[in-house]
């Protein structure tokens, strides 16, 4: 008899692999579809090799219930009915599983490579083409005009108007997930810190939570507090930088030049804590490598106050300037229905009016004890994404000021027990771009049998593509900047 339903677990916990319910693949698809129908969200969908076959694993989130659920299929090879047809949020996951394990989702409307290499370039596959004498195609990348990571954008245009945009990535693929199998090894944590350089703290925290869940440890509270501080500093730096970059793209230089500098101030605050501007070497399984002693904390608090008031002033100019508002309004609009169907996360989803934030929905670590209000703005356009970023700058700032005044005492390091064998552990961290999801499965020795990383960009790139539909191609830069998604986080 088949098990009645998915196994439930909370963020930052583990479950024995044997307790994850197992169904035939078509039934897993059906059951997952039914939960998504009821409003659940697909966090991860991946394959685990077993014998000569592969098991599918579904990790879904019931955001309103603050609960995660996991289920798996029996090992199989060949084809299974596609979940994407009814639930577009599965589209990229199914392509990925097909690429990595050869399981074919029958009926998938756009089955092509995700990031696999083919010699000295990615195996991109054919692009969607719009026909007609008036249609032209614009190809951009992989190498772009600025100091930015590589990716390829293929626009189908009628005059200035973009009818369709397809985004082809994979250029940054470094084989992170493959390298983690059999780990952890000496280089593992560094590789995690480099999954996406601007989300170092987010990914390192997710990895630490997974490792700690596998060890069954509650690490010192002070280290959890310090991680939460670093996570918000990361958010502040990136949001401020992106708001400056948005200002630059509409030629509004006062905010652009001020924010460029203030972003550096926030990065320097992270460096004040751990020496590295991106937070490398701070988060470690078991705690944090360094502490924030009282004198350092005082310096941090006073420099933070200065940077925040500078940011408040410089970002405020954006909303005062009618020229900026008119460029941001109604540009790159994504509707709430689209964002929900696509399973979008982070500020891009919240800018469609969706209340979705892992710190609030699935609190773990320090966020069980302290939270900032979720920042939401309706509209779904560039203005909304900019406003959400701005709200988050303010709220992260307030959160940090409160936290720095109420530091918890104690140690920041602890030794972890060996990882549990044959267990599955899950961590969701709300990084500045959205939900960073790590899922680890251990073997009989407690080493990684499989390690799945879902960067928020994995959910959100398709949102950028849809936001461009019907838009003038000249609006691509501000639309792109308003999302500012990660290439390497996607490519892994």
């Amino acid at each position, binding site marked *: 008899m088949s098990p009645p339903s998915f196994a439930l677990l909370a963020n930052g916990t583990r479950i024995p692999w044997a307790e994850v319910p197992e169904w035939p693949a078509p039934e897993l698809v059906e059951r997952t579809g039914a939960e998504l129908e009821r409003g659940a969200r697909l966090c991860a969908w991946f394959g685990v090799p077993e014998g000569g076959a592969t098991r599918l694993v579904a990790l879904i989130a019931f955001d309103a219930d603050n609960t995660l659920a996991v289920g798996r299929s029996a090992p199989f090879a060949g084809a299974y009915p596609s979940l994407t047809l009814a639930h577009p949020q599965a589209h990229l996951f199914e392509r990925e599983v097909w690429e990595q394990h050869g399981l074919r989702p029958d009926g998938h409307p756009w089955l092509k490579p995700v990031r696999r290499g083919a010699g000295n370039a990615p195996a991109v596959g054919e692009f969607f083409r719009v026909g007609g004498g008036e249609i032209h195609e614009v190809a951009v990348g992989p190498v772009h005009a600025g100091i930015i990571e590589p990716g390829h954008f293929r626009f189908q245009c009628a005059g200035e108007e973009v009818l369709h945009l397809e985004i082809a990535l994979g250029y940054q*693929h470094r084989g992170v997930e493959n390298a983690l199998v059999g780990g952890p090894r000496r280089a593992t944590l560094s590789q995690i810190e*480099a999954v996406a350089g601007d989300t*170092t703290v987010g990914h390192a925290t997710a990895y630490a939570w997974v490792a700690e869940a596998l060890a069954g440890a509650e690490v010192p509270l002070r280290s959890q507090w310090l991680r939460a501080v670093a996570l918000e500093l990361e958010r502040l730096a990136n949001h401020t930088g992106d708001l400056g970059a948005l200002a630059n793209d509409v030629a509004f230089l006062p905010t652009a030049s001020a924010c*460029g500098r203030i972003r550096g101030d926030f990065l320097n605050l992270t460096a004040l804590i751990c020496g*590295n501007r991106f937070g490398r070497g701070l988060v470690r399984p078991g705690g944090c490598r360094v502490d924030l002693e009282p004198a350092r904390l005082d310096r941090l608090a006073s420099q933070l106050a200065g940077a925040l008031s500078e940011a408040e002033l410089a970002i405020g100019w954006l909303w005062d300037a009618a020229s900026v508002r008119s460029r941001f309004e109604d540009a790159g609009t994504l509707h709430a229905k689209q964002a929900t169907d696509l399973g979008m996360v982070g500020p891009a989803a919240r800018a469609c009016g969706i209340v979705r934030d892992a710190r609030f929905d699935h609190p773990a670590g320090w966020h069980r004890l302290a939270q900032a209000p979720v920042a939401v703005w309706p509209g779904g356009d560039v203005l909304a994404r900019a406003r959400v970023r701005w709200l988050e700058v303010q709220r992260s700032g307030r959160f940090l000021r409160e936290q720095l005044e109420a530091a918890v005492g104690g140690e920041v390091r602890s030794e972890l027990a060996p990882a549990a064998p044959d267990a599955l552990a899950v961590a969701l961290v709300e990084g500045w771009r959205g939900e960073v999801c790590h899922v680890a499965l251990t073997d009989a020795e407690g080493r990684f049998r499989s390690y799945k990383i879902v960067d928020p960009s994995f959910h959100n790139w398709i949102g950028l593509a849809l936001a461009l539909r019907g838009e003038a191609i000249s609006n691509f830069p501000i639309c792109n900047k308003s999302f500012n998604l990660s290439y390497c986080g996607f490519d892994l």
Partner: protein
Amino acid sequence: MFAVDTFTHRLKRGCETMAYPKGPPPALPDRHGGALRADGAKCPDGCAECLPVCPTEAVTRGPVGGVSLDLGRCLFCAACVEACPHEAITQTGDHRMAVRRREDLVLGRPGQEEVRLAGALDEKLRKLFGRSLRLRQVSAGGDGAAEADLNVLGTIGWDLGRFGIQFVASPRHADGLVVTGPVSRSMELALRKTWDAMPEPKIVIAVGTCAISGGPFIGNPEVMSGVESVLPVDLHIPGWPPHPLTILDGLLRVLGRLDEGPRARAGGRP
């Protein structure tokens, strides 16, 4: 009223560009540690405390002699510094670590305890590029951190433009190629094409440990082992990622625009 605000703000703040290199360089964060120093002579026979803690096997020890530390593989995590009971590996707090030759990053032997800093380009190239260097940046598997700190050099605090150094959009306009990332195999073609599109004479600058050696991804079949496996490199700037000051120092150093003693300690540890 942003119009009035922005003007008064500008007047109040004045010039925000740092005085360096005319004035002293800004201090590195105290926990940064700067370039490392390795003195193999301090290693007692049989000691191997530092070897297992290095994430990238940047620290090695052969059958004879003390430790050898390769800053081109180093992630600057300082685990070896903490592990060493004999102070054979120490932090210098010095931001300067750019070199012309890869082997100049290998530390440890007598006389080679510290980085052998880069000298300037030869006279002909210096004449061409010394006051006007146009750079094209390519991220080849870079994680975005080194790229971010390259971007920082364009902000008002650093103002790279004052040295005549500028990042350009087209390889056709570029004198130099700045590469970040370990060079993912999927970027090899694009990297070569960019290089081929640049007119001679041209130079290559590898920014960050990933670009120098592959960094934490050394050995992954999906990546090459740094830029040198594809193109000849003229300047190596280590760091994970390098601090903007380290990058700026490297650029000015190779253009012969820093006048200082051979290894006068700048900044020092606070």
